[in-house]
């Protein structure tokens, strides 16, 4: 690795490189072309690749998602940008019924090489309709890969792999990570669809993905000062879930805290509790714990919003509680 760039630029670079490599790749979505993307992820791509490959759409999520899926049936490789994954709810029938299920329903005949990407989860004070996390919904459904990058290296390497995959991919970005800086690999490198141990530790495993992974890493530093050596795993692949990385770590630390921005019920955290039951129950020294977004439509008021989402201190306290120190 060499260059320091932002997640925003990493995503841009991934798309640019893949657009250069394969003329079947195209980008479609609202404001992706002339406006360079609502969050400027597609900056410069229209200039370089022209309007046939960088396509502005009307506000027709169900329509353009379905259209992109149709194009993929004939071998094109669309990248669909949802301006926010909240708007993917309008298109979700096409994502699940037309994209995720078609390979199976066709007995393997029809591939659907498509990436649905865009910011997922909360941003800053955008209210309940613009802040939902769709990780567990998409992870629930067979036929998809679900990725949730954290760092620029994740963003670039996973997006490149996603674009090259012949399967439909849900690629969950996070608005509050777009400015995050980090190193990235060169144009050849794709990241494997596996979790990453961001910080090794021995006392407790903390899993997190997307924006709250940053909070988990901060919390681990504070825990360190308190004499607790947490292992922090970047659960950037939510489907198929990287069970091995999870269980290996839990077998070492014997404690698990799952941090997640989304709502708690039937969440990725819930899933991890079950996976631990299935794979390494006997290694647990304490029950698996979750620290999720509060079970409420995200409020706008600053004090309530802060309370609704996992904060660094909350993570520290939750970890201490798992370890019986609180």
């Amino acid at each position, binding site marked *: 690795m060499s260059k320091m760039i932002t997640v925003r630029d990493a995503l841009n670079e991934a798309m640019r490189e893949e657009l250069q490599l394969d003329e079947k790749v195209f980008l479609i979505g609202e404001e992706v072309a002339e406006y360079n993307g609502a969050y400027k992820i597609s900056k410069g791509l229209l200039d370089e690749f022209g309007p046939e490959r960088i396509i502005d759409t009307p506000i027709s999520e169900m329509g353009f998602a379905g259209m992109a899926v149709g194009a993929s049936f*004939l071998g094109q490789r669309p990248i669909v940008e949802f301006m926010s994954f909240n708007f993917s709810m309008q298109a979700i029938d096409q994502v699940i019924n037309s994209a995720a299920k078609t390979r199976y329903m066709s007995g393997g005949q029809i591939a659907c090489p498509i990436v649905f990407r865009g910011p997922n989860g909360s941003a800053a004070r955008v209210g309940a309709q613009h802040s939902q996390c769709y990780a567990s919904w998409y992870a629930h459904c067979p036929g998809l890969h679900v990725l949730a990058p954290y760092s620029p290296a994740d963003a670039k390497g996973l997006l490149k792999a996603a674009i090259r995959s012949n399967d439909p991919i849900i690629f969950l970005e996070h608005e509050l990570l777009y400015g995050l800086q980090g190193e990235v690999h060169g144009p050849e490198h794709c990241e494997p669809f596996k979790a990453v141990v961001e910080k090794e530790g021995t006392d407790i495993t903390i899993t997190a993905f997307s924006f709250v992974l940053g909070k988990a890493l901060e919390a681990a530093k504070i825990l360190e000062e308190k004499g607790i050596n947490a292992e922090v795993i970047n659960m950037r692949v939510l489907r198929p879930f990287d069970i091995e990385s999870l269980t290996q770590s839990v077998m070492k630390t014997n404690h698990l805290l799952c941090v997640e921005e989304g709502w708690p019920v039937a969440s990725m955290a819930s899933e991890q509790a079950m996976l631990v039951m299935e794979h390494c129950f006997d290694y647990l020294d304490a029950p698996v714990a979750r620290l999720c977004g509060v079970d409420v439509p995200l409020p706008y008021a600053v004090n309530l919003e802060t309370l609704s989402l996992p904060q660094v201190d909350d993570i520290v306290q939750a970890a201490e509680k798992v370890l019986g120190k609180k």
Partner: protein
Amino acid sequence: MIVDKKTAQKMLAKMMLIRRFEERAAAAYRDGHICGFCHLYIGQEAVVVGAQESFKSGDAVITSYRDHAHMLSCDMTPRGIMAELFGKKSGYSKGKGGSMHMFSIERGFFGGHGIVGAQVPLGTGLALALKMQKKDNIAFTYFGDGACAQGQVYESFNMANLYDLPVLYIIENNGYAMGTAARRHSGDKALYERAHAFDIESCQMDGMDVLKVQEVIAESAEYVRSKKRPFLIEAQTYRYVGHSVSDPGNYMPKEEKQQYKDNDPIGKLSSYMLENGLSSEEEIKAMDNDAKASAKDAYVFAENDDLVSEDELMTDIMEDQNV
């Protein structure tokens, strides 16, 4: 309206094959070989058969769950379709898809879709791909009168117009969406006029007369192919049977049904061919016997075919199980 003997015979044979195939499918359903949904096309044959004459290699076809006829019109095999209806391993989807979910890339058939209206954006996307690939091809996108109440249809029209996509939209207006008569779900205005709101040209046609259909679709397909623009046709047709095999269709007034039956596409083309010396009674009879034989052959084949291996339960979900 000029049609040569060969074309007329080809169309008649295909309509007969569809009719006999569907009758066999209905029988197979009663016999317990086919389960779940099974939507028959009996009465509507003229639409896909009239259209098939405009199909060129590399074109794409997509439709709803009422799809057996569309597959036959793409020259997919009766055996492969029937085996899929039976849920057997030689079915087009190895039995995994069933009646509503079959595909053949080789024959240009892209499903078979169970969600009303969903095939319209998909078909628009097939056209987008054809455009991107700079092909001289078009996407035949079929949907029902009931599907016209789906918003995604208008999202598609708008984009097909904006992007100049080579898509031929064909509304198969058979008068009903399940038990709901078209005027009860769409009001009094003709459906084809809705295209105009999105700057797409359109027309209506008698969907019971295959010669008329063939002519209208030839012209409009040519428009789409040469102008690289969308076009919409509303075919007025009728299904003689219920919505799915289990629906008795009591909501269809007897006289209405009889009117259409009196206008039967197969009977009509047969008469025309007889009158114009394009075929003899015996030839027509022989063609029908061939159709019956094919349908029966498909049935027997499917009955004797094996179920897909249980090992296949978890295959075909994703290509990259592990990247």
